[in-house]
């Protein structure tokens, strides 16, 4: 009885004010979605960070603690990083040399991708060379062929010409697979630069080479940064071709050395994870530095992994 009498006036009041009721429902709905969003965020965080946490945890462990049952390190020590940077283990004897190889490879791939990509897109997009669509189709075709499907013939060809363990064999293949994306982005970005600029320079007597260097390249700077970042990351992160073509200790890159680590039976896992983290830092830093620039180009076709 009492409940009914208590309930009825309240219900009547609520019915009398539908706006109030809707507001309350909306507030409850907002509260629920907020709780849901918080839960989802927690799941995303755990999902994303677990493998990274595992990597950091193992790198901070002492040698004997790696193979034991715990989910956080009993003793935290940065000793493994010290071993890596001082090349203090026979697996890591040539670490800095290999790091240098990685840097050289990435730098060359970036420069060549930018040069070849911008020249091609200048000729096709700005000078409007006849049948330029053949070039864009060739680029599109290269973009959609999985790189790993060409690995076996490419490896045999390079072996035939004695080019394995030569960084240029890897540089050439990485440039091949990075250039199509460069051409798309440059063509797309170049559309925002009025053709009249080239036209008036031409009337003033500038040669195509001068137009390319003095007008095209400076105006394309943002696209050059985006594509340069992309090519740099692609070259630094690539594994398959480096693994096939660079197999001796002097020519291999950090990626290959890490893979070799994994395949040995007695790998010291804490050193390996420390090496992996040092290897991962340059691309992460590059990515976050140039993130804004990269995402503008991203939407167009995506980055090839």
């Amino acid at each position, binding site marked *: 009885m009492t409940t009914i009498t208590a309930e009825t006036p309240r219900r009547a009041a609520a019915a009398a004010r539908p706006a109030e009721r809707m507001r309350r429902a909306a507030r409850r709905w907002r509260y629920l979605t907020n709780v849901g969003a918080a839960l989802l965020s927690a799941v995303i965080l755990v999902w*994303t960070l*677990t493998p990274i946490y595992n990597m950091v945890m193992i790198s901070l462990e002492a040698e004997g603690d790696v193979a034991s*049952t715990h989910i956080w390190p009993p003793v935290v020590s940065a000793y493994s990083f010290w071993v890596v940077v001082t090349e203090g283990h026979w697996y890591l004897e040539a670490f800095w040399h290999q790091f240098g190889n990685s840097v050289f490879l990435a730098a060359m791939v970036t420069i060549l991708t930018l040069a070849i990509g911008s020249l091609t897109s200048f000729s096709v997009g700005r000078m409007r060379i006849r049948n330029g669509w053949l070039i864009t*189709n060739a680029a599109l075709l290269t973009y959609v062929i*999985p790189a790993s499907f060409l690995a076996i013939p490419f490896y045999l*060809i390079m072996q035939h010409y004695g080019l394995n363990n030569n960084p240029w064999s890897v540089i050439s293949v990485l*440039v091949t697979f990075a250039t199509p994306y460069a051409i798309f982005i440059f063509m797309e970005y170049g559309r925002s630069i009025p053709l009249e600029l080239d036209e008036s320079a031409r009337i003033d007597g500038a040669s195509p080479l001068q137009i390319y260097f003095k007008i095209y390249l400076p105006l394309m700077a943002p696209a050059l940064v985006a594509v340069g970042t992309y090519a740099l990351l692609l070259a630094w992160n690539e594994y398959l071709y480096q693994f096939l073509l660079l197999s001796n200790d002097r020519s291999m890159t950090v990626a290959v050395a890490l893979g070799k680590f994994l395949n040995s039976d007695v790998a010291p896992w804490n050193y390996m994870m420390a090496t992996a983290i040092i290897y*991962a830092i340059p691309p992460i830093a590059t990515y*976050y530095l140039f993130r804004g620039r990269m995402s503008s180009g991203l939407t167009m076709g995506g980055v090839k992994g």
Partner: protein
Amino acid sequence: MTASYLEVGGPAVQRQSLWRYWRGGLQGSEFIWAVAFIVPYVAVFLLFVIYPACYGLWMGSNPALYAEVFSDPIYLNTVVNTLIFLAFGVNVKLFLALMLSGFFMRPGWWVKALLMIFVLPWAIPALPTFISIHWMLNGEWGLINNALYIMFGVDPGPSWLNSRWLALGSAIFSHVWKWTPFWTVILLAGRMSIPQEIYDAAKVDGATGLRRFLHVTFPLLANLYLVLTLLATIFLLGDFNSVYFVTGGGPANSTHLLATLGVVRDMLDLGKPQLGVAAVMTALPLLIPLVIILMRKLRTAEVQL
């Protein structure tokens, strides 16, 4: 263009018109420059795409190879693995990406901060994190089984990498972990390009929540979603890293994909590169139609992408 009225002038003029046709609107020396600018890319394309592709086709042209490939039980397992990988890998990661891109549209600084963390798996090179996942899955000392033991008392935990289906599932999980952020960012850009007025109009018509997604957002994203599905399928067909590092193709060569089977088992372990090429070539009946559809779609839809 000029050909139509010059044709009456006899063979000499016709030859000249053909020359002019090839030059397009370019003056003499400019045409030479334009050609010189595309020469590097054409050379790269012919040397490093066409040449290896033709060499591969030639290597795999012996019909006897295919008899050997199809009678190989490991190859048949690999085909099953590839189909499972495609069915789950592509759809799970794209569906998650579609849903999560909606989540990341929410306003607020912490959603943006979460997005920065969420893209980490993609920003970090594949190699270190896959090695980390490989160790996490270790049956005795891996993080996952340790956590299972500490939290739920599961002992002994499942030996993830010693059973074919668990190992394959782990490889798919790792692939999804690595690549979902990338597709999320692309779909997020796609969602952001939908004008707010459309949503406002839908709201007036009473479409909110799920109905807004089904009748407004998804139809607008459908074309992009289809293109991304095709692209993800092709990229996954050529995937090497997730299987190579997480399961290594094991146990007993039961979790290979085509790329790892061809390169690792056939070429490096068995020393039969022809067999590897033939195994990879059996993907062509699936790959070629995909490439053709995708090239059409990308050419016409690149602005929408």
